[in-house]
């Protein structure tokens, strides 16, 4: 703020009007993706999608973006894997089969379950996302562990970590943070972010959450205690 504080209503108005801070590039990209999706699908699809969705903050964005996949497919290639992102995401959208893992007593930023040393985060204290269940699967030769989280009654997240060497990723809406590349896509009506942690493919799909929330959760690491 300038040294002399504004005194009059007029000065306040002028000060406010002088601000022209731009929106973050990531937001521009997301809005452009929304418009591109709309151009591709037209009003009718979006309208039906919208009417089918509960009116809650964030979900409309997720569903409206849910059909971008054709334009923003994240490609998996290379490595020894035939695992597709579609398969990994599908696992995060299935119901849990076991109870939620407990908090790691030695590290309060992690749950007491991991995939080859890559632990699932504990978000309850920090973000209010509690773990609600888990499942273990095997897909295309890879063990896949998934932990499910919920916040309130209308927000769910499935967080999958894939064992073994991660495939190469390409495509999607890319965001860089802390030296890590995060790729956002839509799959089966959910928003999905995927990235690598210690060489392992991580997939987080969200219902009722926006990209900004997914990004904050995916990129969270408590002062390096949780590897990312």
């Amino acid at each position, binding site marked *: *703020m*300038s040294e002399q*504080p*504004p*005194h009059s*209503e*007029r*000065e*306040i*108005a002028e*000060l*406010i*009007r002088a*601000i*022209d*801070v*731009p*929106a*973050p*590039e*990531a*937001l*521009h990209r*997301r*809005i*452009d993706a*929304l*418009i591109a999706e*709309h*151009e591709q699908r037209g*009003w009718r699809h*979006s*309208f039906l*999608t*919208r009417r089918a969705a509960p*009116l*809650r*903050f*964030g979900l*409309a*964005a997720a*569903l*409206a973006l849910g059909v971008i996949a054709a334009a923003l497919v994240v490609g998996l290639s290379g490595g020894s894997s035939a695992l597709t992102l579609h398969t990994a995401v599908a696992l995060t959208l299935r119901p849990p089969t076991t109870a939620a893992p407990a908090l790691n007593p030695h590290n309060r930023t992690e749950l007491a379950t991991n995939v080859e040393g890559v632990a699932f985060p504990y978000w309850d204290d*920090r*973000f*209010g996302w509690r773990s609600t269940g888990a499942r273990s699967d095997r897909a295309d030769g890879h063990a896949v562990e998934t932990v499910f989280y919920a*916040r*309130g009654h209308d927000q769910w997240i499935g967080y999958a970590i894939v064992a073994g060497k991660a495939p190469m990723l390409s495509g999607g809406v890319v965001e860089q*943070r*802390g030296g890590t590349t995060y790729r956002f896509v839509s799959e089966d009506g959910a928003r999905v972010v995927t990235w690598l942690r210690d060489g392992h493919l991580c997939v987080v799909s969200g219902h009722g959450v*926006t*990209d*900004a*929330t997914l*990004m*904050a959760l995916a*990129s*969270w690491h*408590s*002062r390096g205690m949780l590897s990312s």
Partner: protein
Amino acid sequence: MRTLDPQSLSKHVDRLYRAAWALCGSREDAEDLVQETFARVLSRPRVLQGDDELYYLMRVLRNTFLTSLRTASRRPVTAAAIEDVVAADPRPTNRPEQAYEAQELYATIAQLPDNFRLAIVAVDVLGLSYREAARALRVREATLTTRLFRARKEVAERFNPNEPKSQSSDGKARAPAESYRVKEHHE
């Protein structure tokens, strides 16, 4: 009357973002709000009565914001330590001093009561005329003018806490919260 052209929306992102920031007081919440606003606008055909899309976007932003407030009030409040959450965009502007000003100003605006907040956002942040702002907020122009005046006055008072507060008819200083209860024009 004409149908809103989706391709023309992207030019409004910056202004909508600033408006959302001033409403929410947080850049991350502002991003969510803007994204949700555009998703709503694009969910079905929109017929505009005038030429200005911005007024229409303000209306949707207002509705989305109020919906989010109602939703948030039903959700348990949880806090994240600021040092644990990476900023939404580490490079919000090429002018850091202005980002700081914006942060301080918008945080102050975000503390105002909803009606005052919406008025100052519509006119001063978004740049709508009084008439457009009144239409977007569904109030009479006189109501908007009153709210805007009080909103600016309140912001000024918060920046100058040692200056005398607004005076009541009996000459006694009013606390800011009390001054909100002065009778307004009703729509």
